[in-house]
């Protein structure tokens, strides 16, 4: 926004944003960016730092950023905690649920989205309209009835309740259909001329070409399942079957005076998604911005 000092002669050749800025403004801009970045990172550093403190250091005023007596006590407390707060077990549950959920979403949404993008059949428009319209229904509407259905299926208090119902969401089909529409149809036509059938074209041509999109959907589904909070709070009753998000609430209630333990739990819940974020940052951000633009 501060690029006003235009040198009109250079304007046609260089895009405005690349024009050289006066040094002072540039420094000011970077200073602002760094301050903003600190605001975004400081709470996460605080979480890590607290998790490495002793319980009393964590709340002794004035607070310090660097632990005075660095210790992994909080983590060993968590590892040794009995069946009341089995954090490792929650971690495993979360990992299993989120992975299975991501696989299920991709495996069901991809063929459905392909049918919606390329095939002709009766009621196609109505089915598509019905699926997409549910994107606008607030989730709370589904809460009670889905609970009763899951109960009837015998899934209450099991990981299946955390894996399967969420995969019915419209997002995956909506997202992949847009991307399949963008795959050049000529490639598929050529394969049909060679005698391939729908299934072969889908698995040998369309899916390999759509790998980035499938990866994006898998990562986004993993993240949303890993972070899911309200649903597991109410469908899981047994401590050892909880996932990390409701587990953190349990931890918060069990260790009201021991902040390092609660923060250690939060660190354990954050590390896998932060690693995934660092590895798949482009996929995640592109996925979000694409659905944004196309929504």
């Amino acid at each position, binding site marked *: *926004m501060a690029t006003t000092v235009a040198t009109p002669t250079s*304007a*046609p050749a260089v895009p405005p944003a690349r024009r050289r800025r006066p040094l002072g403004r540039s420094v000011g801009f970077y200073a602002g960016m760094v301050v903003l970045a600190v605001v975004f990172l400081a709470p996460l550093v605080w979480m890590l730092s607290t998790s490495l403190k002793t319980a009393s250091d964590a709340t002794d*005023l004035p607070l310090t950023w660097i632990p005075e007596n660095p210790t992994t006590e909080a983590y060993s407390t968590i590892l040794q905690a009995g069946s009341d707060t089995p954090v490792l077990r929650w971690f495993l549950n979360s990992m299993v649920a989120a992975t299975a959920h991501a696989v299920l979403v991709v495996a*069901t949404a991809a063929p459905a989205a392909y049918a919606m993008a390329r095939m002709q*059949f009766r009621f196609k428009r109505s089915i598509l309209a019905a699926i997409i319209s*549910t994107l606008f229904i607030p989730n709370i*509407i589904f809460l009670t009835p889905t609970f009763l259905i899951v109960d009837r299926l015998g899934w209450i208090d099991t990981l299946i309740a955390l894996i399967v119902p969420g995969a019915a969401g419209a997002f995956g089909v909506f997202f992949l259909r847009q991307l399949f529409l963008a795959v050049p149809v000529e490639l598929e036509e050529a394969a049909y001329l060679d005698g391939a059938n729908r299934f072969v074209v889908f698995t040998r041509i369309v899916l390999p070409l759509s790998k980035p999109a499938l990866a994006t959907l898998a990562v986004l589904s993993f993240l949303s399942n890993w972070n899911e909070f309200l649903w597991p709070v109410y469908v899981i009753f047994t401590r050892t079957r909880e996932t990390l998000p409701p587990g953190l609430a349990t931890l918060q209630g069990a260790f009201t005076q021991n902040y390092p333990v609660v923060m250690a739990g939060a660190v354990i819940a954050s590390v896998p998604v932060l690693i995934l974020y660092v590895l798949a940052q482009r996929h995640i951000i592109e996925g979000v911005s694409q659905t944004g*633009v196309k929504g």
Partner: protein
Amino acid sequence: MSVQTSSATSRAAAAAPARPVRRGAPWTPYAFLAPYLLLFVVFVAVPAVFGLWISLHNWDYLIDNSPFVGLENYTRLFDRDSLAAGDFWQSMRATGIFTLYSVPPLVAIPLAVAVLLNRSFRGRTFFRAVFFAPYVLGIAVIGVLFGFILDPNIGLLNDYLGRLGIARNIPWTTSVPEAWISLVSVTVWWTLGFNAVIYLAGLQDIPRELYEAASVDGANSWQRFWHITLPGLRRVLVFVITITVLASANMFGQSYLITHGGPGSETRVAIMFIAEEGLGNFRMGSAAAMSYVLMFFLVVLATGMFAMFRRWED
């Protein structure tokens, strides 16, 4: 990257008219659809209708029969003497307050950040990734973390405010309006990157030439923002406002973990109350009716918003 996004969009538009040809057996499309449709019917379509049915019954999970009560679950909500009605409307009020306070900053601040990120500079991708990072952490992590940071007695924020001599012991989580300020600020911190990334993709679609022409005509940066950026972002802005209103009206975890609905039940939002009524106390008929009332308000709100947006488009 968002440049790729936009070219993918135009390619999609170009490919769309190429009508799909029927190939293979007539049942082939249904075979492709079947797995997803099964999930969709059982966990989306049926619940959407089943919910209405539940709301017409005195549906209690803990008792065997659930007698039909007609609209009683709804009319009870408008009965002044009913205790549940009072609590419900209190929670609706909390949701309304949070939506009212949170939507303006959640629409405006990410836009400012997106405009800054839209310039090309060294480290742009890094900063974008940093601003987006909190969003990949779930609300449970954010909730327990800020429950600690905002703690009035031993929290980091009050410690600093005290040391700087600005204020002491501000009740960030135990008093209103401070609790609302906390919940809104945490939500901005958590989801800023999400909205910013959507704006950023929209900004990339605004032709650079428009800015160049405006600069040549002597427009300053504020004028360019007002006359080029904002109109160019109109559709994206409508989208962001819509999803932000919906997300704010569905807020749950922040209240649950940071203020625990308090002080009293001031920040106990509608979702928190309905979930507790239905799945905590197992009064499912009543909870289902409440969720439809909440949806009714959201539909009215959305209709009003779209009417306003249409006027803006003209």
